[in-house]
């Protein structure tokens, strides 16, 4: 297994009486990890420890294999960061901010101009390039924050609630940008309390609660470990006992819950994709099938299941 590019090894942070951690997290190259948890669960502190903005009270923190506090400049090379509710100096224009960040990244003036223009266009701020940040809307500031994070073609993106305040069209656009980034081999640590966002983008997740890791792993691992199984949601008209019986007899089906026009089929995590077989049964019996899909709030259920179990990993 490759060395993690970002590592929290039993890292904790004390704020007076309150403590976050010990937290353990390993983000490997090419991974898109969701960092989940409610407000105050320690997501931002974990990110700030990784970025060397706060010193861990105990444990080990590495970014690009280096201590981000002691070797700040080396550890943060190739890392783009967009903070939660970014605070950007209101007197600067997007162009000026990106120019400063380009200087911090050591980009030449020509490259700096090109990169700034490219990213402002990518985030839809080209026409506001010379407008003071103070006059931009919250969503626009969030877009600017994402643009600065992506300057200099980083290989790791650390995004703290990146879609907050962005309009729905922008959110879709950014998800696509992140997918492209990941497809090109980029690594992403995405902090969010919106679980559907994480399940749509990430291939792994770490869930925090009260400053502790509730669980961590690939989305399939989480489902396997925390849920009885995956849930297939079927919308169909006039399903009878016969069709339900046929579906129940499929290998891997554990439970079926029925309500008007909808059935939820709990399938063992290890089972193969049963959706084509279920669809065939419904269509062959002459019933009208409206939709068949996996439940999309799977992480929320896993989270609730973890809370009910009351277990935390370190």
């Amino acid at each position, binding site marked *: 297994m490759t060395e993690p590019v970002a590592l929290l090894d039993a890292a904790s942070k004390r704020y007076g009486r309150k403590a976050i951690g010990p937290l353990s997290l390993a983000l490997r190259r090419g991974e898109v990890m969701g960092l989940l948890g409610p407000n105050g669960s320690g997501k931002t502190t974990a990110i700030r420890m990784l970025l060397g903005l706060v010193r861990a009270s105990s444990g080990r923190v590495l970014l690009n294999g280096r201590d981000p506090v002691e070797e700040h*400049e080396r*550890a943060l090379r190739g890392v783009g960061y967009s903070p939660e509710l970014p605070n*950007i100096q209101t007197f600067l224009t997007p162009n000026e901010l990106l120019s400063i960040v380009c*200087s*911090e990244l050591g980009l030449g003036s020509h490259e700096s101009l090109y990169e700034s223009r490219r990213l402002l266009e990518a985030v839809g701020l080209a026409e506001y390039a010379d407008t003071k940040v103070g006059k931009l809307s919250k969503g626009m500031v969030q877009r600017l924050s994402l643009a600065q994070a992506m300057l200099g073609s980083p290989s790791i993106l650390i995004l703290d609630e990146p879609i907050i305040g962005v309009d729905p069209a922008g959110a879709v656009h950014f998800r696509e940008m992140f997918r492209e980034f990941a497809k090109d081999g980029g690594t992403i640590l995405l902090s969010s309390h919106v679980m559907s966002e994480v399940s749509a983008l990430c291939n792994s997740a770490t869930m925090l609660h009260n400053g502790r890791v509730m669980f961590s792993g690939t989305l399939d691992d989480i489902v396997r470990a925390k849920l009885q199984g995956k849930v297939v949601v079927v919308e169909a008209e006039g399903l009878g006992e016969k069709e339900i019986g046929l579906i129940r007899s499929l290998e891997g089906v554990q439970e079926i819950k029925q309500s008007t026009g909808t059935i939820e089929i709990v399938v063992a995590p290890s089972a193969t994709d049963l959706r084509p077989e279920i669809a065939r049964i419904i269509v062959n019996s002459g019933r009208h099938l409206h939709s068949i899909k996996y439940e999309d709030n799977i992480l929320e259920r896993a989270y609730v299941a973890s809370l009910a179990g009351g277990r935390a990993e370190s």
Partner: protein
Amino acid sequence: MLRLWQVGELNPRFWVVFARYEVKRALARKKVLVLVAFTLLIDVALYFGLARVAATHIPSTYYPFMWVVGTFLPQSLLLSFVAIFISAGAMSEEYEQGTAELMLSKPVAKSDFLLGKFFGGYFLVFLVIGLNALAVLIISSILFGPQSSIGLIPSVILLQTYSVLLFYAFGFTAGEVIRRSSLSYIISSLILLSSVVSGLYLTIVYGITGQSYYLHLDAYLPTTVVQSTPIQFARAHLSGPGDFMLGLLTLGSSSTLPKFDASAITVLVYTVGAFFVGFIYFHFTDVSKRVS
């Protein structure tokens, strides 16, 4: 690049980046501009006041040295206040507004950020002092005719800039350690005012007791050394009416001011001590999230 223990790789190229940023940031704050405008307004008011009484109360032999009045009068207090107002917000406002986080999440040594901001603000102080001297020279020339010994002005500007470095460093460190701009201005200004009051008190006690011990104590007060460094230099180069005017501006205490070398060294000691505290504090503490 310079490698220092526990400080990281210092890269002066970043100092320029952050210094330019700091100048822009400080100028965007209205209170700094207001204070600068106030300083210049005092110059104008002072000279118009002098011009009104000149014909009857000021001998014409003093006219060529009128620049001395405006150059040295605002120095000990107003220019030190300007320095405090520029420096006390340099770091504290970054924390209050939460902007330090974004700047420090890039691959630059934290120390480069701090040093760049320190130098940027200090450059602004230099500009204000230069602007004050230029305004004084222009107004005094218009109202009192050609000025003498103006070759001294560049050196005086440099020495004034050097001496207010002391309060600049106090303000900067207060801002870093306290991380609240208003409280930093208040505490730094209180140090300045306490030093002025202590100086007066010590001078009075010396006048009553005649014990030189009190004068020695006064010689180490921040405001005393800030005032005496450029004044002692000017006294060594001015004579006759110019020297007399300097004596008036120091309320007759110019003979008891510490010598130039002693003042300059004391300024340096205070400055290095204050900056060192701020630098170490910054390096070993977390970058705060938005605090207001």
